[in-house]
């Protein structure tokens, strides 16, 4: 049946796409509009309803090929969104945690047990990781815009996903390192303040959420042929 040709095509296309629901919906709405417009144009040229719809779908292109091009754009859009989150959330999260620590716990040096110098190095490295990861995400966003037309979309999508994974990985590693170092120096410090324990828990929830975003970003980029 003629009507089903467009429905089937749009459904088939949608089933092959992965990305932000809004972006997928927008692309599919635009696809359906285009197919309906093409059908109307063919009807005006004297084709029957069924012929017009079939011709519109044929002209749109093989679903596998079109899905591949759409997916590359969806993957880049998802990568961009993830990098924006990383660029904004990581420094905010770190500043909030540090401000809370200074307010509720005070400087590391003022704690009961002596703080070895290597611990301060680990703490400093952890501080820098969030800033560096955020900075890398920001640079990637700017470069992505400049290089949007110069490089293959599929390559840009994979690069964005890789940067997101590495940035979240570095932040994760920094947080694991500071927790392990704190436990090694004085395990009581980990439980010294209930509000700080809650703040740490929130930090971990945010990192895990960013990690899931980065993983989905990679999944969107790697299903592109």
């Amino acid at each position: 049946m003629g009507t089903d040709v467009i429905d089937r095509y749009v459904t088939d296309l949608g089933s092959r796409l992965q990305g932000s629901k809004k972006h997928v919906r927008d692309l599919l709405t635009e696809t359906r509009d285009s197919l309906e417009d093409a059908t109307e144009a063919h009807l005006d040229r004297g084709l029957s309803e069924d012929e017009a719809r079939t011709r519109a779908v044929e002209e749109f292109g093989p679903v596998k090929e079109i899905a591949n091009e759409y997916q590359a754009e969806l993957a880049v859009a998802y990568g961009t969104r993830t990098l924006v989150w990383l660029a904004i959330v990581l420094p905010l999260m770190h500043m909030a945690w540090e401000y809370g620590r200074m307010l509720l716990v005070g400087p590391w040096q003022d704690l009961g047990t002596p703080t070895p110098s290597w611990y301060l190095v680990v703490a400093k490295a952890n501080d820098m990781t969030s800033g560096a990861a955020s900075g890398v995400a920001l640079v990637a966003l700017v470069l992505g815009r400049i290089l949007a037309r110069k490089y293959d979309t599929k390559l840009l999508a994979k690069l964005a996903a890789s940067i997101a994974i590495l940035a979240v990985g570095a932040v994760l590693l920094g947080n694991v390192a500071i927790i392990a170092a704190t436990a090694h120096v004085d395990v009581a410090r980990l439980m010294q303040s209930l509000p700080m324990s809650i703040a740490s828990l929130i930090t971990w929830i945010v990192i895990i959420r960013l990690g899931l975003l980065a993983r989905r970003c990679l999944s969107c980029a790697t299903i592109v042929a």
Partner: protein
Amino acid sequence: MKPDALRGHLDALLLATLDGRQLHGYAIIEALQQVSGGALDLPTGTVYPALRRLERAGHVVSDWSTVGGRKRRTYRLTQAGQKALHAERSAWREFTTVIDGVLGGGGKWAQT
């Protein structure tokens, strides 16, 4: 014209089609076919990812609006898009001048 030959020029063709006007996807496709007398024969589905790529580069912006009872995404050039189009036109003129100098020679080497 073969789709593969067109693909490399698709961005420039889309920028030129949107020069001084705001169009939705299918109107862009129709305009391209009209101007080329039907010679530009790309799968129409490839135009939409290309428009998104131009949007990502900041060369076009899009808005959703309801036209004739149907939601349509319409595109227009930005200032950066105008500049990019200008650069594409200059590069194309330079390219065709050089290639024409070689191919349009009428086989003068064969005659000498």
